[in-house]
């Protein structure tokens, strides 16, 4: 249950090739995150899997069966939309129960499932309310509840947290991860936020302009990005990418070093501190190093440097090397 395979899936809107061709294997029970910048095609890919859009060519297999021509209702998948898409004229209970009604389920059985989903999501006290009377987080849960009751082969999440405020986002993120732990169902999750991707995923699919840049576990992508795009996308603050003579020294066109892998004190790179941000738990500083450009540095605790200070930096972690085409060198 919940194994999904994409074979040469292509999608074009008129002249525009939004997705030139994607091959992907999603294993049963995996938490897969599609991540990438705006317009990279991640939502489109999700909607193709859901059946809300037709593929231009290629095939989509769900549990080994060809689902490419199946309408959404027949694919056995459940989707949580960015705007939650709750039915405003129905109570929470009717919202959650709607898919079961559409499936013609026995009302007693449906009632059991609804109550179960409601208790898992702490919605039991809200069953008679309408979506308009709920907060953002509660609506989010109703949307998830509506997906859970169907016991689908896989859950599809389309940027579910982007409409929530920052504090709520962290909490909901953890709730969704816990849900995955308990249900063990395949989850495909779309986001532009790489922090969500890193914290939630078993497997991350990095997309750019409709193409898969890399597929791998979060730590794999962190330690071994296959190209410049992935290197610059994963990790916050972004990896420092340096071209020119310093890169040639290491035998590459571009080298990359993460801000957290640079120490302040003694080292080969000397420069002037520009902007510095002190969070107490970390310090983020920008250092203008002649010949290298602006280097971002992240240090634990309080670094004690300020605007205008002249300091020295030293690389203290992996130096990633990239060739002229942007591909990683071993």
């Amino acid at each position: 249950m919940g194994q999904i395979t994409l074979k040469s899936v292509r999608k074009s809107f008129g002249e525009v090739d939004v997705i030139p061709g994607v091959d992907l294997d999603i294993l049963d029970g995996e938490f897969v995150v599609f991540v990438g910048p705006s317009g990279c095609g991640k939502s489109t890919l999700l909607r193709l899997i859901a059946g809300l859009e037709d593929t231009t060519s290629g095939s989509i297999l769900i549990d080994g069966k060809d689902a490419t021509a199946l309408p959404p209702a027949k694919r056995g998948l459940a989707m949580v939309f960015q705007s939650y898409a709750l039915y405003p004229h129905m109570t929470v209970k009717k919202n959650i129960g709607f898919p079961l009604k559409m499936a013609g389920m026995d009302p007693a059985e449906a009632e059991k499932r609804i109550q179960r989903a409601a208790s898992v999501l702490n919605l039991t006290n809200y069953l008679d309310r309408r979506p308009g009377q709920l907060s953002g987080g509660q609506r989010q849960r109703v949307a998830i509840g509506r997906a859970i009751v169907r016991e689908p082969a896989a859950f599809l999440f389309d940027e579910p947290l982007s409409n929530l405020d920052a504090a709520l986002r962290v909490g909901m993120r953890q709730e969704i991860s816990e849900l995955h732990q308990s249900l063990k169902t395949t989850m495909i999750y779309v986001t532009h936020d790489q922090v969500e991707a890193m914290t939630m995923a078993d497997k991350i699919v990095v997309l750019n302009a409709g193409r898969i840049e890399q597929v791998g576990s979060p730590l794999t992508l962190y330690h071994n990005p296959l190209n410049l795009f992935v290197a610059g996308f994963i990790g916050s603050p972004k990896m420092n990418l340096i071209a020119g003579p310093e890169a040639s020294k290491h035998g590459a066109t571009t080298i990359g070093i993460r801000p957290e892998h640079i120490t302040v004190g003694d080292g080969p790179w000397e420069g002037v501190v520009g902007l510095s941000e002190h969070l107490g738990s970390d310090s983020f500083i920008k250092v203008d190093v002649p010949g290298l450009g602006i280097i971002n540095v992240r240090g634990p605790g309080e670094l004690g440097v300020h605007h205008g200070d002249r300091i020295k930096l030293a690389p203290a972690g992996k130096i990633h090397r990239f060739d002229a085409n942007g591909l990683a060198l071993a």
Partner: protein
Amino acid sequence: MSTHSTRSAARLMVSPSVILLFIWMIVPLAMTAYFSFRFYRLLSPERTGWVGFNNYTWFLNSPDFWVAITNTLLLVGGVLIITVVLGVLIALLIDQPIWGQGPLRILVISPFFVMPPVAASIWENLFMHPQNGLLAAVSRGFGTDPILYLETYPMVSIIFIVSWEWLPFATLILLTALQSMSSEQLEAAEMDGASALARLRYLILPHLGRAITVVILIQTIFLLGIFGEIFTTTQGGPGNSSTTLPYMIYKQALIAKDIGRAAAGGIIAVILANIVAIFLMRGIGKHLDT
């Protein structure tokens, strides 16, 4: 959002309305054109035949026709000017901090919902009637003779009545547009030192530009076909002084029962409407972005 199944279902569902409107457009128009080139009078239906452009030349040579065209343009132009200018002023006034804006809006908007024959009848009988009308009473109060509005100034009276009917529409549209204006924009201007008059000139009126355009466009469509008011009051008279093109065509069709002539008149009316539309589109089409 669309897939194969939904797309074909969609096409099927649009068809009835498209087919209906298409037939409603093409067939009658084609028939009008056909009859316009024929001699056909309902009272002597046996005598028919092609008469080429005779029906058209009858119109162009008839002094009544040119009076009708003038009256039509006067009606449309007059009502437009009155309703837009007054509409803007009244909308600005109602938008000010006042008590009872809700009930006030109801009062102001009422004339629009009065059906044209009733509106015309009210003005004709209760107000403009030389003996029993309220305006006559006012004249007598001033010691002057009552004015025979509909006889002496038929076109002006009609324009007045139609303006009374359509002023609420213009006011409502403009008021809606006014109230949709972001107050933050005006506050920013105030912080920038703009006076109330300056804010009116540089911010409010340009914002209203689009609504005014829409009002002019929509009203023109309806005003070109004004009929009920004239039918109820003057029947186009005295003589032809309040006959507009639609009324003239009506007279040919249903009173003189001259189908050929009325058809030619109809085609002329369509051409006129298209000319007006082109002028409108060119002149103010830039304001519109649907």
